């Protein structure tokens, strides 16, 4: 089984992710109120709203140019650390996709790996720091493992989705090393990291969208 996503497809995924983020306003805001500034939901929601409002322009770009444009829009709209981290991720993904016609089963893993590497380098952070990386890094590792042992695409994608959700869940027991939560006495232990949760929403939505296209 294989898949090919055009820019128009990816924008469809963006709209679905935007909707899931929008629906979880209270949940994400509550998580953030416990550990952070309380503004994560508002910022990321604003970023996704901005992407959706630019859907016509994004849909007609090549996949590489679309990724770059998404990165620029997210940086300018989300602001702060999240904005530049998402921006870095998408621009790293754009470099992988440069000259490619589709996002497909041949390049998606490489794109996601470039994205998580960019976030880790830019944020000077590692898995286990109680950040969005904890929802993306295990997904990428699972993807690579699946390709290496030759699982079929559907199985790989399902594993990736599961790894991302479990990765976000795992932040509950972690001590924050970066960001606002690390200045708290208990370092945010006992609370999910809101950035990891919104990241897992994106991975989950993307994978479900691709699974829908497979069948």
């Amino acid at each position: 089984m294989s898949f090919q996503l055009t820019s128009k497809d990816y924008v469809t995924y963006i709209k679905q992710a935007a909707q899931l983020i929008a629906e979880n306003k209270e949940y994400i805001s509550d998580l953030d109120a416990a550990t952070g500034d309380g503004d994560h939901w508002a910022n990321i929601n604003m970023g996704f709203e901005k992407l959706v409002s630019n859907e016509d322009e994004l849909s007609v770009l090549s996949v590489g140019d679309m990724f770059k444009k998404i990165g620029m829009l997210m940086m300018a709209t989300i602001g702060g650390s999240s904005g530049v981290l998402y921006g870095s991720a998408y621009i790293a993904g754009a470099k992988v996709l440069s000259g490619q016609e589709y996002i497909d089963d041949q390049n998606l893993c490489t794109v996601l790996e470039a994205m998580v590497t960019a976030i880790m380098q830019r944020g000077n952070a590692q898995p286990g720091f109680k950040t969005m990386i904890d929802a993306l890094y295990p997904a990428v590792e699972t993807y690579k493992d699946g390709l290496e042992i030759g699982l079929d695409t559907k199985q790989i994608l399902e594993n990736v989705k599961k790894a991302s959700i479990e990765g976000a869940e795992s932040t509950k027991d972690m001590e924050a090393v970066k960001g606002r939560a690390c200045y708290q006495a208990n370092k945010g232990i006992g609370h999910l990291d809101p950035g990891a949760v919104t990241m897992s929403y994106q991975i989950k939505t993307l994978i479900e969208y691709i699974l829908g296209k497979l069948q």
Partner: protein
Amino acid sequence: MKKIINNPQDVVTEMLQGMVKAHPDLVYFKENEVIARKNKTKKVGIVSGGGSGHEPAHAGYVGKGMLDAAVAGNVFASPSPDRIIKGIEEANTGEGVLLVIKNYSGDIMNFSMAKDLAEMDDIRVETVVVKDDVAVKDSTYSTGRRGIAGTVFVHKVAGAKAEQGASLDEVKAVAEKVIANVRSMGMAMTPCILPGVGKANFVLDENEIEIGMGIHGEPGVERSNIKTAAEIAEILLDKILSDFDYSNSEIAIMVNGLGATPLMELYILNNEVEKILTQKGIKIYKTYVGNFMTALEMSGCSLTLLKLDEELKELIDAPCNTPALKGGE
């Protein structure tokens, strides 16, 4: 909150609009909150920036012999890469651009992202990170030492070097030399009020001061009762001199006000600083007293020492003409 403002949302834009009206040789790009020189010459471009609230840093240092562009973030918040890119584009004349960054996590991320984007557009960009504050090892917004008033010496020296026609590598090297030889230490007496927040960002008692406080109100090293100018000079110098060996050196010093401290007090402090340095046999080549790197209306000061060699002396003395620093002509 008592401030001469309109809407707190508009303080950065309206400040920069007011600034270009006072300094017509500067140009303002509202979309990106960038101030740049109107008249460009072909040379290495120097760009700095960061959160607003530290005026005259950084837009006040745009002009001949210092910066080519300054990028403003919101109050105490880093500018985003799309703004910084505009600053880079305005400063670029084909010889490459040096970014002078203060060591705060947000600034590092946003400026390094902007560097990557500029390089995708084939503009050569190098960065230097200023971390002159000896007060604390790590801080609320930084990994490693914070960048404070010593940054102004980097602007001055790198700007002068670029004006001489040096290459990007040479300009970066001399900026690194300043960073290696500059140390600062500050103290605060009253907090500051962010326009968008409306109340003080920390509390100090009537007679209390905090040694080593950062320019955003980040914690310092100790709180104590108010001291004399002589004692404050001694405390700040002790910390600096125990970190870096300035003995038998020629130095430039900067006695910097944080915003609400009168020049009278800064000169009194300078008088004490000079006595101690002279007694220790450290030769003062040049002295700057004034408000160079502020923290809104915080009262307090910082003291910066820069060890000079012949090259740095020449560049410190070189002409500059900016809203906040002029001389040498």
